[in-house]
């Protein structure tokens, strides 16, 4: 009897285990082998290497900025999809839907707040992430192209935020996009055409709203998602995050196998981190995952608190006859608008175009291989100084444009 019961119990356990193992190939890891296997065989975890360099986990090195940007993107996707259930991209209905979100839809205002603040946060975080990568010299060989991808991600992020700006169809949206697209029109030769293709009309109207909507909810998120995937994939293929040069070059581990016979796929990874000395590396499970979880929870909590405390702005419905004075672009383009106030072409197209080209070209101009993996490395004094001064200049322009510009773009004091 007792044996039978035991057997029954065992079969039951085995059935449950069967289901568990059919979903998760591994038990909850308790040995190093299981830790490796978990990271390796789980779809969502296999993006991580089995082991990471200890340096990668130093919070003060990365500040988690890239991850924060990605998690903000995830929040934006989720809240954005929920908002799509209520939004209608029509000039007659869009604003009413905003009022509905605010007054009658359950969680509506909270969702909108989260979406809005995450969007602003993402623009800021992506920018800061770029600064981090530059200031630690992480764009150098073999990571040149991942830097280029990063610059493209920054541009797509800006464009995503910009297209979303129009959708509430209030005064803020209408005039910010009117200003923003007229900056685009200053581009030589094709400026007017770019503006026309964007707006589908000579002014911001129904066509522009529909185009911005499609770009915002379908085209740009898909592009961004793809670029992010490549960005992440290349981190692995370029040998993990950047880190300081090894103090003494390790002698190449002699390969016991005859090279003509067997090829390790690891050989395709440039500058691979293959575990190295045991004291340099830790298992991704749980060290890296815990760190990522922390960044995620932190990001979510900050966005939640901000969304609870501050409401996303909503102004009067669009009134084409009454432009606010001054009509201001979204804050991240206010630096541009400020420069445009000095010279339409140079401020709106020349300087920013040059900046983007410079940014993209940075890993190819900067041939100095030294100073990778450390903040403000002495060897990179010149590069860092140039970069920082441009960043500070841009921030100053944004601050001036945001707080110090009054009617007719005259200088006013906010105090």
């Amino acid at each position: 009897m007792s044996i039978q019961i035991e057997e029954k119990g065992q079969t039951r356990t085995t059935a449950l285990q069967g289901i568990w193992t059919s979903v998760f190939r591994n038990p909850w890891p308790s040995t190093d082998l299981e830790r490796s296997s978990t990271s390796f065989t789980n779809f969502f975890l296999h993006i991580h290497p089995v082991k990471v360099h200890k340096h990668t986990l130093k919070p003060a090195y990365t500040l988690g900025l890239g991850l924060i940007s990605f998690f903000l993107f995830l929040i934006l996707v989720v809240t954005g999809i929920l908002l799509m259930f209520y939004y209608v991209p029509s000039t007659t209905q869009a604003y009413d839907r905003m009022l509905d979100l605010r007054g009658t839809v359950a969680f509506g205002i909270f969702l909108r707040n989260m979406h809005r603040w995450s969007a602003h946060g993402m623009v800021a975080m992506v920018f800061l992430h770029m600064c981090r990568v530059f200031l630690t010299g992480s764009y150098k060989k073999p990571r040149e192209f991942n830097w280029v991808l990063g610059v493209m991600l920054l541009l797509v992020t800006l464009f995503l935020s910009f297209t979303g700006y129009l959708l509430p169809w209030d005064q803020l949206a209408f005039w910010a996009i009117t200003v923003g697209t007229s900056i685009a029109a200053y581009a030589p030769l094709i400026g007017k055409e770019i503006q026309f293709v964007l707006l589908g009309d000579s002014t911001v109207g129904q066509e522009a709203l529909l185009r911005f909507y499609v770009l915002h909810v379908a085209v740009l998120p898909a592009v961004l998602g793809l670029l992010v995937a490549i960005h992440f994939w290349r981190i692995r293929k370029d040998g993990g995050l950047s880190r300081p040069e090894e103090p003494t070059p390790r002698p190449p581990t002699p390969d016991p196998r005859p090279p003509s016979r067997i090829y390790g796929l690891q050989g395709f990874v440039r500058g691979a981190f293959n575990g190295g000395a045991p004291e340099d590396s830790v298992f991704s499970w749980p060290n890296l995952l815990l760190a990522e979880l922390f960044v995620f929870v932190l990001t979510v909590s900050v966005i939640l608190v901000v969304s609870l405390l501050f409401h996303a702005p909503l102004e009067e419905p669009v009134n084409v006859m009454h432009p606010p004075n001054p009509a201001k672009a979204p804050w991240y383009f206010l630096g541009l608008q400020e420069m445009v106030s000095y010279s339409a072409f140079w401020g709106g197209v020349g300087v920013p175009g040059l900046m983007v080209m410079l940014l993209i070209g940075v890993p190819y101009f900067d041939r100095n291989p030294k100073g990778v993996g450390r903040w403000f490395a002495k060897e990179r004094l010149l590069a860092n100084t140039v970069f920082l001064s441009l960043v500070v200049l841009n921030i100053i322009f944004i601050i001036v444009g945001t707080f110090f510009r009054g009617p007719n773009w005259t200088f006013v004091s906010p105090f």
Partner: protein
Amino acid sequence: MRLALAIASFVVLIVHGVVFYDQFFHKWEKHQTAYFEQARSLTKNEAERAALEARSPKIEQYIVTSFGDTHVDRCGTCHIAVDDPRFAGYSEPLKSHPYSAALGDVQRNGRWERRHRFADFGCTVCHGGQGRGLETEYSHGQDEYWPEPMLGYVVQANWRKDFAPRLKGKEYMEANCAQCHTSENFAGTPNVNRGRKLFYAMNCYGCHKIDGMSEGTLGPDLTEAGKKYKVDYLWESIVEPRANLATSFMPKFNLGENDVRALVIFLKSRRGVNFAETEMDRYKAHVANVAVVIPPGTAGEKAGEQLIQDRACTACHKLRDSDGGIAPDLSYEGLIRDPQWLMDHFKNPRSRIPDSIMPTFRFPDDDFQRITAFLASLKTPPPAMTPAGTYKALCERCHGEKGDGNGKVAWYLDPAPRDFTRAAFMNSKPKERFVASIGNGVPGTSMPPWKNALKPDQVDAVLAYALQTFTKEPAKSLKPRDLPETNPVASSPDSIRHGEQIFLDRCTGCHGRKEDGKGPNSLDITPRPRNLRNTAFVESVNDKRLFESILYGVQGTAMPPWIDYGLSKNDVGDIVNFIRSINRKSGSGQYARN
């Protein structure tokens, strides 16, 4: 690290708690519970009590589909006692909606029966507000961007403080009553009826279109004014027409507060097609309104006088003792305008005064002829007076008490009346020019010829009076200037093209790209830059004067001496040819140069 993770997770948990609490804890449940308790204590039999016991708090809503878009009115969620007569004496939100014979409610066997049942009408059809809202701020429409706040009850935060208190009161709801009760004399909507009468009596219909009522085109179409604008905006637009649009030329009418309120309520009731009307009804009303003729019994002058009264001309103009304070005096019209001028001006005021703001009224031809006959008969000259008296009687209404060109109607006149206090101008022109302007008038402007009303010595006297009283500075002898009598440059396509080029380069800032005197700088300039497409005026000015104004500038105005800025006589000749070319009446007109 783990501690920080725990803290962050805790924050996430707390915020979720707060948000969910906020979403799922409803204030209205408290109101409903209170109602159930009160109602139980008021019940007399067990069945009612049992029915009440069975009820639990839930969202109460009326779904009304008979009035335009579907209304989902959840007002009864808080105002749960709205149809319970026992709660008449309670305070909001647990107060029953009043019963009133004026609303059509009837009492049968001691019980009131509503004419407008909530199940049929809902709440927002009459009251406005946001029917689906469940929080006071949103459902009452206090949210400043909600387009339909509860009429006469809610004052939104961004409304103008100075007249916001006047925007409260039950009477504002008449605008909603009128959506069904469209009859012009419906007793329940006295303010709408009064506003409709004022719309005609104050000549609003001359400029504004309301489908089925009027077809003015000078001002905005008001067919859907009630849908587009809130009462705050409507009130402001009537009492301060330029508060929202600096360039508006809508007159500030002389209206009492009750008149303004009636007009606002009337306009609030204009929503395009309303619940009670079909497109066909609108078309019939339109035909009826346009065909209105007021046939006075007798023909001729008497009928004209009657028409002037019926058509409310003195809502703007002055005629003897009635003065609208907006448009010129008609008392001496027979002396200063001939019948042809009057008829042309009626058919299209801008054919005679290109920048006139007078609406083109579409009265029957007979009516115009009768009014013209009456006006042409006003030939009694003003009695002989002192020069000061003459100025006061004839000039002051436009040129102002202080002679600064700022009389009571001056704002509505374009070009503006001459400012006599600008000595620089007054002393740079010969006296003969002023005498001619008074005697012959200034074509294309509101300055009429006075030669039939004033004798030459009277003209001299009133001019001397104006110069002495307002200009003050004694005239200096004028420097002779080297000016050709006629334009030495022959008009040719090349000359005109060159003139246009100079015009585009130098003149458009003030005179505008359309040469209409409304360039971007013109708003800040007095007197306003000339409208160079004012053909009547341009034709009355000889080449010599054009040369003088362009080459040597117009002293006392913003027109600079272009000779100092490098324009040669030939250049000016080209400009003059260009100006003449855009004012040719027929044949080789402005398009000839293409």
